[in-house]
């Protein structure tokens, strides 16, 4: 693909090199550590689910017991492997016994290390095989349906009623009106919970709790619709917060297609400890990568707390870093939906040209990625008509720059979590513009040295500079200095730091091995 922006290819390559280096450095600095959430994820992948009598999720029950005895440094797999040998029971049974207070993993005779590893490795392999089997069935199901036009943008629509059953109603309206991906937004504060709630839920704020049951309910509803209407509708959710890798596992199990999964969001916007998140994101991404789930990063957020015109280079820098962190976790480019947003203040003269430049820049820098484009939000006010007009131009840039995934804008963005018809009005706007302007991108060229080309070049140059600086000081310090979204977070601060555990020499996680990514490399 020829660059429409006339980009400096060398500079872009240099950005990539520097970003890869930054990501490697993060890998090194987080290596040799696990977290309570990573370990709970191992339990979940091994089939542990459910809650104890006090409603504590069984993965937490297990990890808590192991931690109590200071055993987490070996990894939950070690203890569970040993327990399997000792009891002959399956992981879920073992977890139930622990939950019922009938079993203490540390009071069991310890088998030999290699036997433990072998046992748990077999269980893990079988578990992965099973999930892969279900996903393969899904792939067949999907292949039998209309997957939409290959080159058209996939519309991504949120539902966020707080009640999973109401979300289903919204999702049906979305599907019926051409939505391609339904994303169940999570209740506020769930990111701060160090466990995943259990069962179907009907009371959330600004979103619906991400539980395995809710995933299943929504998946089933969408599949029902897809079957009846012959078009496959994808499901997405948020894979972030203190339970990031667990949610990845739940998503894989329940057949989610996409996940919002950002390396830095929780740090910056939820004040989660930075090392905790960076360790968690890695395992979560391994899982997403392994099961073919497309992830979407959250650079859009920076433009909500920093000015979109001046913060543009930080978006590119972050996309690069997010990209290489994902690559390092084994995600192929086709599964890395780097984020991107249309957030310039509507009163900026030629703002559209800057947006166009930025969107095209993202598209050209990540040619193999399903880039995800986010709608205007922060400057949207209570006037639904103003928002709708801005959304129209957002839709135009989307189609003209060939974004692959597009979260649609809704007229009431500035007011409340959208009502059912707001989603439909948003989809109609999107569909109208996507079709009415279908080949515009191919039909026009940017004037060499014009505003658009100049802006793109400048953003790239500044992003490059920024990456160099970050490489110099390391990502941790860069976050401390407020490079992203004007938010500054420090090494030891933030929630969840207490959940980080250093490996001891006997640490073992069969999934990392089986999923083929060596984290200690």
């Amino acid at each position, binding site marked *: 693909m020829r660059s429409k922006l006339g980009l400096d290819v060398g500079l872009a390559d240099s950005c990539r090199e520097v970003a890869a280096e930054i990501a490697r450095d993060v890998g090194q600095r987080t290596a040799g550590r696990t977290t309570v959430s990573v370990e709970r994820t191992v339990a979940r992948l091994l089939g542990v689910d459910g809650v104890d009598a006090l409603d504590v999720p069984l993965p937490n029950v297990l990890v808590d017991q192991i931690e109590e005895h200071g055993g987490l440094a070996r990894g939950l797999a070690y203890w569970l492997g040993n327990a399997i040998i000792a009891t002959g029971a399956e992981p879920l049974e073992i977890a139930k016994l622990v939950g019922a207070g009938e079993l203490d993993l540390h009071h069991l005779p310890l088998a030999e290390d290699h036997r433990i590893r072998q046992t748990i490795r077999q269980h893990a392999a079988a578990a992965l095989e099973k999930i892969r089997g279900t996903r393969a069935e899904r792939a067949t199901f999907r292949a039998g349906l209309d997957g939409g036009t290959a080159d058209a943008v996939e519309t991504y629509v949120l539902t966020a009623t*707080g*009640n999973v059953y109401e979300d*289903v109603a*919204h999702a049906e309206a979305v599907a019926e009106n051409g939505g391609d991906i339904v994303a169940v937004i999570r209740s506020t504060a769930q990111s701060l919970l160090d466990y995943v709630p259990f069962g179907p839920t009907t009371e959330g704020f600004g979103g619906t709790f991400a539980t395995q049951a809710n995933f299943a309910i929504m998946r089933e509803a969408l599949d029902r619709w897809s079957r009846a209407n012959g078009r496959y509708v994808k499901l997405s959710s948020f894979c972030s917060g203190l339970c990031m890798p667990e949610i990845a596992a739940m998503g894989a199990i329940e057949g989610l297609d996409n996940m919002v999964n950002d390396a830095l969001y929780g740090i910056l916007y939820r004040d989660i400890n930075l090392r905790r998140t960076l360790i968690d994101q890695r395992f979560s991404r391994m899982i997403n990568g392994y099961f073919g789930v497309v992830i979407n990063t959250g650079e859009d957020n920076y433009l909500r707390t920093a000015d979109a015109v001046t913060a543009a280079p930080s978006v590119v820098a972050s996309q690069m870093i997010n990209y290489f962190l994902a690559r390092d976790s084994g995600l192929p480019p086709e599964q890395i939906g780097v984020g991107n947003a249309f957030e310039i203040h509507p009163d900026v003269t030629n703002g559209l040209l800057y947006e166009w430049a930025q969107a095209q820049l993202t598209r050209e820098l990540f040619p193999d990625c399903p880039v995800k484009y986010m709608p205007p939000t922060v400057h949207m006010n*209570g*006037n639904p008509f103003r928002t709708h007009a801005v959304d129209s131009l957002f839709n135009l840039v989307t189609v003209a720059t060939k974004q692959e995934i597009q979260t649609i804008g809704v007229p009431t963005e500035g007011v409340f*979590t959208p*009502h*059912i018809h707001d989603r439909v009005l948003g989809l109609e706007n999107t569909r109208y513009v996507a079709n009415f302007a279908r080949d515009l991108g191919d039909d026009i060229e940017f004037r060499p040295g014009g505003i658009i080309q100049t802006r793109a070049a400048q953003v790239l140059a500044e992003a490059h500079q920024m990456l160099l600086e970050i490489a110099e000081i390391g990502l941790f310090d860069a976050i401390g200095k407020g490079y992203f979204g004007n938010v500054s977070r420090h090494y030891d601060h933030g929630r969840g730091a207490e959940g980080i555990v250093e490996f001891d020499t006997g640490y073992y996680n069969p999934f990392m091995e089986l999923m083929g990514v060596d984290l200690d490399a």
Partner: protein
Amino acid sequence: MRETADLSAVRPYGDHLNDGLVQVTFTLPVPYGLAARHAALELARTMRLTEPEVVHYQRLCDGYTYFVVIGQCRQSVDFATLREGAFDIQYLTEHEIDRLIEEQIGRRVVVIGASTGTDTHSVGIDAMLNLKGLDGRHGLEAYHGFEVHNLGSQVPNARLVERAIAVNADAILVSQTVTQQNLHLHNLTELVEIAEAEGIRDRTLLICGGPRVSHELAKELGFDAGFSKGTYPDHVGTYIAKELVARRAIASTTATAG
């Protein structure tokens, strides 16, 4: 499990069953400011909105302020009962209509149409009557079963009735688009009066249509039926054919009885 709506007490739905959420927009002829905001909330309360909230308001010019209000409507509507009594008609295809006419009436049905008074909007009536029709669905002119006279637009009511008599029309179709200051009401009422005065009201179907003409309104004004946006030629074609057949049936019963 998902709660299902109680159709006998239906309320607006925003994102939860029975949340009653509605959005109301209007301008008040008052100067922009906090007092204006209060006035808007007061007004919303007179509309029986609970917990109204001004989510946006802006000055239009000196003495005029625009509001976007959301609030909860706690009243409900009995949809179950409404549904029972609703005017609904099973539409036939072009072919079925032609066959119905051929079999039950045995001659071509004569329809005459116009956009009347000073109304020059002819696209609607043309869509009903002219060959070309609408969105690929033929106008009545294309049907075997109809003989069509389309007088066009700006046709005085008197002239329309005069021509209807001349061609011995079974149905008069009038279109009205300009409704500001209720112009259409005067004009439509006049047509009924003239038809009555000329003594053809009973033997002619009076049908009106237009973007803001509803069936209820049409009935109220003394028409037999009214058609609004989203009407296709086969809709009104079905109505005419079925209604004429039904009237013949009644007439023949009466004739036999009498």
